[in-house]
């Protein structure tokens, strides 16, 4: 009797617990819930985190993420409008905006991922294919700092102005995709072009171009060096000439001035008595003109030897 009541009591407790666990469910901060009753969605989605109650057994809680979710694209090989083959990788972040719609259309995240693959990859290809490569690479029209290199080295193509640029292209993709995905209860929050690279065959050509570009730059540096050093040598030659000729001019100038001054001094002095000067200079000349190899043929009528003839010849000499 007692045992039976215990068994019945136990059964009730178990039944109660099962019911309770079916009636109660917790929603975490990262989740949102759609309640379905025998498969039919009931009411609005529950986005408030915490402990919630539903009708046990009849109703079922379907959990969905509330956070921003991943979508990472594969590498798309796309020709740009100017026929450059590039690999583009995009990534996007999205959230389940309308869990009910999402549940009805896509069932779960896996369904969403494959649908997003189709939509975003397709849209990316469209946008890339209808723009030039430079639009995908650059964001603004800022001018490159030239450093030491000269601009004619740059490829003409890379100097072209862009109309949109990378940022606006991603906004374009985002806008296009955002037209479509609300039908699936999805909101696309961001799309970014993560990577853009040349495909292998194009890359090889780009490398060749880069190499030849660098060679040109190197040649330019070398000839610049030769030119500059020649310029310096020329400057040196010119300065040497300037220095030498100026020195010559100065020496001639000061020597000439001195000569002139000396001449003036002599003239002034000798003008006092020209006859005496002539006489003295003549006497001086004898000193230097006569040496041991000289012959002197002297008449006794000369002043020196006058007295050889007669002692009183002195008066009649002149």
């Amino acid at each position, binding site marked *: 009797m007692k045992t039976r009541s215990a068994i019945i009591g136990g059964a009730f407790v178990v039944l109660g617990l099962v019911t309770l666990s079916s009636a109660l469910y917790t929603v*975490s901060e990262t989740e949102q819930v759609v309640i379905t009753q025998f498969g039919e969605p009931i009411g609005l989605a529950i986005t408030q985190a915490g402990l919630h109650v539903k009708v046990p057994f009849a109703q079922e809680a379907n959990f969905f993420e509330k956070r921003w979710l991943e979508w990472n694209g594969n590498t798309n090989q796309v020709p740009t409008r100017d026929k450059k083959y590039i690999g583009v990788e995009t990534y996007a972040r999205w959230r389940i905006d309308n869990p009910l719609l999402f549940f009805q259309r896509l069932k779960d995240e896996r369904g969403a991922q494959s649908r997003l693959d189709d939509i975003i990859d397709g849209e990316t290809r469209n946008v890339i294919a209808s723009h030039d490569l*430079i639009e995908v690479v650059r964001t603004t029209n800022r001018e490159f700092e030239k450093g030491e290199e000269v601009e004619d080295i740059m490829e003409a193509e*890379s100097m072209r102005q862009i109309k949109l640029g990378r940022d606006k292209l991603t906004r374009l993709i985002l806008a296009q995709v955002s037209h479509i995905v609300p039908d699936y209860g999805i909101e696309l929050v961001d799309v970014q072009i993560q990577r853009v690279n040349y495909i292998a065959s194009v890359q090889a050509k780009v490398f060749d171009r880069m190499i030849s570009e660098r*060679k040109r730059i190197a040649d330019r540096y070398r000839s610049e060096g030769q030119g500059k050093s020649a310029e310096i040598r020329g400057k040196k030659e010119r300065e040497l000439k300037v220095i030498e000729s100026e020195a010559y001019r100065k020496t001639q100038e*000061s020597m000439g001035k001195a000569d002139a001054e000396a001449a003036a001094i002599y003239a002034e002095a000798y003008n006092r008595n020209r006859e005496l000067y002539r006489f003295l200079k003549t006497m001086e000349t004898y000193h230097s003109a006569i040496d041991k190899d000289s*012959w002197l043929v002297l008449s006794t009528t000369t002043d020196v030897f006058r007295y050889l003839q007669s002692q009183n010849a002195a008066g009649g000499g002149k």
Partner: protein
Amino acid sequence: MANHGAGFDPEEFTRAAREFGARLRQSRRLLLTIALVIVGGAAIYGSYYQVEPDEIGLVTRFGRFVRTSNPGPHAKFPFGIERVQKVPVQRQLKQEFGFRTARADIQSSFRKDEKTSAESDMLTGDLNVATVEWIVQYKISDPYKYLFRVRDTEETFRLMTEASMRTVVGDHSVTELLTVGREAIAAKAKELLSNLCKIYDNGIAVQQLILQSVDPPEPVRPSFNEVNQAIQERERSINEAWAEYNQEIPRARGLAEQKIQAAEGYAVDRVNRAKGDAQRFVALEEQYRKAPEVTRSRIYLETMAAVLPTAGKKLIFDEKAKGILPMFPLGPVQEVKP
């Protein structure tokens, strides 16, 4: 107690059941105690948690965020009623791009593979290719947002960083990237990434973005080195020319100065001599004027006296001795000459 007999004896079964019941009642207290101890132990174990100094704890009750807890020991409701997630808010976190630190040590070793080179190869604004390696340092500034706003925040952050860096590099030329633009690029990429973090509201604060190495791609590298060599060559030939210049010009200046000084010396010498000569002449002339005849004769005779002995041969003849032919002893003189 089990009945091993062949037949079933209800009497014995009842007795055995009673006995079992009695023993059960006896040990019930013991069982209850054990159960209480187990439950109590689990409750205490589940209530206690510790937050490390560099972390912060986020407590959720039935999935709902209720409070944060600072470093130290804390209590919560056990049995999954309250759960705690710890987030390292004080720690400086780092992500590497283009390489991975294989072993961080005094001399760290790095690893590169296909995956990392896919991260580092990128297009520059002049449609060239560059290899860029960089790191980003960040902190979790808002643990709530970090946990609950974006799923896999870390991986998302990686992608955001890559997209930012490529956007900035795509707006610079390869030359800028390799030389003058490095700091500007890092700063711009950081700014872009910080803005993106604000838009994503992911609770991450970017602290530093550092460019580690920026290189031309492997096959192109030798030609970039050649450019550097050419720059060196240019510098060298310019320096050589300047060295020559510096060697010759000062020397020429010195020589020129020497000539000028010498000329000036000559000038002074010339003038002084002239003055001396003039003064001497003037002095003599003054005396001469007083007694011209005597002075003149004196000078003449003095000169003759000085000059005549120096002459090698002298021939003195008398004009009146007309009959006598003067004799020139030419022969012997020529013989005497050496």
